[in-house]
Each structure stands twice: as C-alpha cells, then as structure tokens.
C-alpha cells in the first residue's frame, strides 16, 4: 500500500502566540513494500510527520492519500485507516495497560470488532512475530523485561495486521542486545509480511543497514531524499545540519582527504575492508590472495 503526501503543512496552536509550524510543504510518496527511514534532529518535524500518516494529526493544509484515499476527507473512517497504517510510538512499552500480555495485544483487534477466533489467531501470530513465547501470554505485561515489554507493545500494533508499519525510534533506550533483536525483527517482518515500513531513527548505522530510502528532515522540511549510499556520500551536507554519517563512511571520507582512492558509498565494515584492501592491492603492498 502506498502513501502519498502532498503539500503537507502542520501548525500547532494556530492563531495563538504559541503558534509553531512544525512541518511545511512536505511532498513525499511512500512506495508499497519499501523500508523508508526518516532522520533529523529532535524538533525537525519527524514525529509530527508520522502522526499524519494515520490521521492522528490533521494537516493545516495539504493532503495525505493512503491507497489513493484522501484520509482527511469527510466520510472517511479514520479508525479503518489506523488498522491499515499501524503506528508504534516512541517507548511504546509505556502504553501497556491490560492485566495480561494476551489482552493487551488483543486490544487493537477487539476494537476492530473481529470475531473471538480471529482475535485469537491474530494475537498468536503477532506474538510469534516478535518472538514472545506463548507461555508469557498469561503473564502481566508489567512483569516482563524492558525489551520484552517493547516487543509486546509492537505486537499490539502488528495484531491489527496493518499493511504499513510506522515506528518512531524503535530502538531508543534499548541495550545492544535488545537493539540487535529489534532490528532483526523489523527486517524479518518486512520480508515475511511484505510490509511497508517507515521508521524514525537517530542511529545512522541502523539506518544504513535497514532502509531502502532515506528522508532527511531539517526545520520542518525535507532537505534530502534518496538511497542510503547516495545520502551518506554527501557527508558535508549532512554535517552542515549537524547529522553524522556511519562511522565507516566517515572513515572513507577522511581517507579520501589523504589521497586514498576509495569510494564514497561505503557503509559497512565489510565494504570498508574491501575498499582499503583494493587500494593496497593496487599498490602491491600486499599480495592479491589476501591471507598470506
């Protein structure tokens, strides 16, 4: 399912001394099945933008079309849009409320008015998708570890079986293990369910491995857009707005300054290794076989 955003502007507290335009004239098409990352500073408008995708915020001007339907038109049932575009907020574990994990995950499907049987199978699928053992289903969500709580909260959105999954900083505050698990799960979900994934992140390494396409926001506007390699190749431009690049990309940029002929599209350790070895091999400092 694709989402088309045209001329989207949002002003908070319009007409008051506190009026603040958070995003202005955003044009963006989110393609079916892609993984799109939105990066930018706190206050650059990322969160405001994603809250428009399922109609939680209404545009001051502009339109959002989900699957061709203008969601802010009269007569459009916003709740049905929210089933299609699942939004996971930052620190979603802070929204758990039911007595059991099962009931919490079932909250969305029950709101959809599904049959008990359908609710059950959806809850089971959702918990399986985030690697939560069914043995935990009858426990209180408040007894779980931080990482588990977050996964249960995400299952609560997945259980609505949306076609688009929007995540606002899904790895914030997790420890390295929790972060690695979370990224793996998002990747798997995307592949298995053919989900369209939109996520907000501050972590450039994360963005580089996960996203097909990046949108860079600054002061409420989209300032850059494209595949990670193209965006991160423009380290200077990102630097100018105070955003970094993955460490390996930065390393390559510094090597190029010192006269190394390495590509600017390096994101991972493997690619960096390759690039450095290529230069050294060309200069015959090391053998062609590598392991000597």
């Amino acid at each position, binding site marked *: 399912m694709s989402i088309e955003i045209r001329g989207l502007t949002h002003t908070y507290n319009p007409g008051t001394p506190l009026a603040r335009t958070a995003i202005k004239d955003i044009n963006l098409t989110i393609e079916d099945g892609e993984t799109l990352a939105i990066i930018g*500073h*706190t*206050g650059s408008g990322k969160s405001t933008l994603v809250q428009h995708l399922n109609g939680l915020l209404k545009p001051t001007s502009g339109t959002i079309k989900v699957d061709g339907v203008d969601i802010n038109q009269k007569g459009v049932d916003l709740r049905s849009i929210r089933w299609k575009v699942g939004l996971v907020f930052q620190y979603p574990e802070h929204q758990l409320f039911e007595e059991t994990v099962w009931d919490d995950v079932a909250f969305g499907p029950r709101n959809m008015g599904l049959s008990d049987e359908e609710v059950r199978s959806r809850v089971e699928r959702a918990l399986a998708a985030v690697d939560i053992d069914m043995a935990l289903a009858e426990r209180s969500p408040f007894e779980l*570890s*931080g*990482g588990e709580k977050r996964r249960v909260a995400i299952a609560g959105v997945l259980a609505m079986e949306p076609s688009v999954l929007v995540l606002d900083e899904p790895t*914030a*505050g*997790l*420890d*390295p*293990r*929790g*972060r*690695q698990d979370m990224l793996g799960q998002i990747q798997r979900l995307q592949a298995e369910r053919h989900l369209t994934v939109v996520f907000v992140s*501050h972590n450039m*390494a994360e963005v580089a491995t996960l996203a097909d396409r990046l949108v860079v926001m600054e002061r409420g506007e989209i300032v850059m857009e494209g595949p990670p390699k193209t965006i991160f190749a423009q380290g200077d431009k990102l630097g100018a707005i*105070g*955003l*970094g690049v*993955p*460490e*390996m990309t*930065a*390393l390559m940029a*510094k*090597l190029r300054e*010192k006269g*190394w002929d390495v590509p600017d599209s390096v994101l991972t*350790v493997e690619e*960096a*290794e390759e690039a*450095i*070895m290529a*230069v*050294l091999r060309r*200069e015959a*400092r*090391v053998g062609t076989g*590598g*392991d*000597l």
Partner: protein
Amino acid sequence: MMGNKESFIVVDKVSFSYTGEPGAKEETALDQVSLTIEAGEFVAIVGHNGSGKSTLAKHLNGLLLPTGGDVWVAGMNTKDEHHRWDIRQIVGMVFQNPDNQIVAATVEEDVAFGPENLGLPTELIRSRVDEALAVVGMSEYAEAPPHSLSGGQKQRVAIAGVIAMRPRCLVLDEPTAMLDPVGRREVMETISRLNEEEGITVVLITHFMDEAVKAHRVLVMDEGRIVREGQPAAVFQEIDLLRELRLDVPPVIELASRLRAKSLALPEAILTVDEMVTALCQLRSGV
C-alpha cells in the same frame, strides 16, 4: 576514621541480592565484585541490562548497601551511617531519565536543591549555582522551566545539580540512553571536560561503546560479575568476548581486526576513526 584504604573508592568483594516479594527467589545482582577507582580516573562500565551495572553504581554512594563485602569512599565505609551524607556529597549521581531527577520548576532552583540540602548559606548557594551552570554551559537557561528544555539540556542541568555540591566523583548511570545524537554529544563533552579540567573522577555506565572508548579504563559486566577490566584498547580487542556477550563491537575495531587478519601490520591501539586513518596512511607510505 578508617585510613586503611588507600584508594579513593574501594569496592571489596561486594555481593548484593534484591529480595523481591516474600516467597520469590532472591536475585543476585552482584556477586563478589571487587574494584578500586583512583581519584581523577575516568572509568566506563559496560554490560547488558541486568548485568549489575546500575546496582554497582548505586553502591558507590551508599544508595544501596552491600549484603556482603564493603564499599569504601575516601576511607569511609558506606555502611557507616555517620558518613552517609558526606559520602553522597563526595560521590554525586546522575541518572538515565533526565525528567525524573529534576525536582524544581526552574533550572536554577533545581541546581540549588543539593546545596540547599547541605544547608549552605544563601550567598554561597548563589555562587555555586552560577558556577555549576557555567560549567555545563546552561547559564542562559537559569530561569527556564525544565520541561521546555531538550533532553541533552535537561541532562546537563542534572549534572550541574550534582556539580553544585562540589563532589569529587560523578557516577553517571546511562546518562545518554534517552538522548538524541546532539544531546549525547553535549553530555559527553561536558563529562570529558569535568574529568579533564576540573579533575573530577568519572564513573560512566553506558551501552554505547563509542562512549566507553573515551575512558581510561573499561569494565565489562555480566551476570553480576566483572568479566573484563582494562584499557579500552585492550578490552575492545576481544571481539569474540564482545560478540559472545552480544555487546556492540565498535566498527573501527572490527575493521582493524579484519585487516589484521589480512596480514596488515596495524598497531593494537586503534579505537577511533582518526587513529585508523593515521595508521593506514603510515602503512601505505611504508613507514
């Protein structure tokens, strides 16, 4: 009272168990941990949630008392009630969530909270507050309400609140976990400056390996024990251990190890991008 402990902080075979609800199994959070910290040091502690890092941190200023073993701060045992407030003044703590440690409704009144508790005279509190805010670069926000600040700014206010008590040691429990990159940078720069310029001992608990490499010494914790201890260059060289504990391996260190496996003669102590650039350039020019 007790002069037998030479080092600034001595953690001597400390064990600690959380006793949960009656009938529940006791959980051992610390298991015979021993550690010394010298004045002026910058020590980083890494490990997973539940590895015992935070529990250890709370022992350093007597917020928790060991169930076995002792903690000595500047020669004082944290179990000794007479010294409780001296110890808390000497060892200040900054916590993860910036929101939940700011007490007052304006920045300067929050920074004043600690000195007020110490019963300092009004004029002295004023000068301490102004100084502390200047050190963390938040002077212009003195009268701002905390909820109007960014995460990084709030965390700097929290640091100022501790600094205003003139501690000799700062223990920070994942101070950047909830911050964005700008906030993280602000806080890390503040911490480094306090250590280098003000000579304050720093104990930094973190999930971020790029922060830990800035320390003089790194401790790796797992299941309530210290499993590795040493200079960052040495500890982070143990990629297999980091992998096994599923801690992040800093990309530069992983690259260095891969290149070494390809028989490049790289020095051991490469931790940062700049060090890698220098090493590679030397290698290339055949030095």
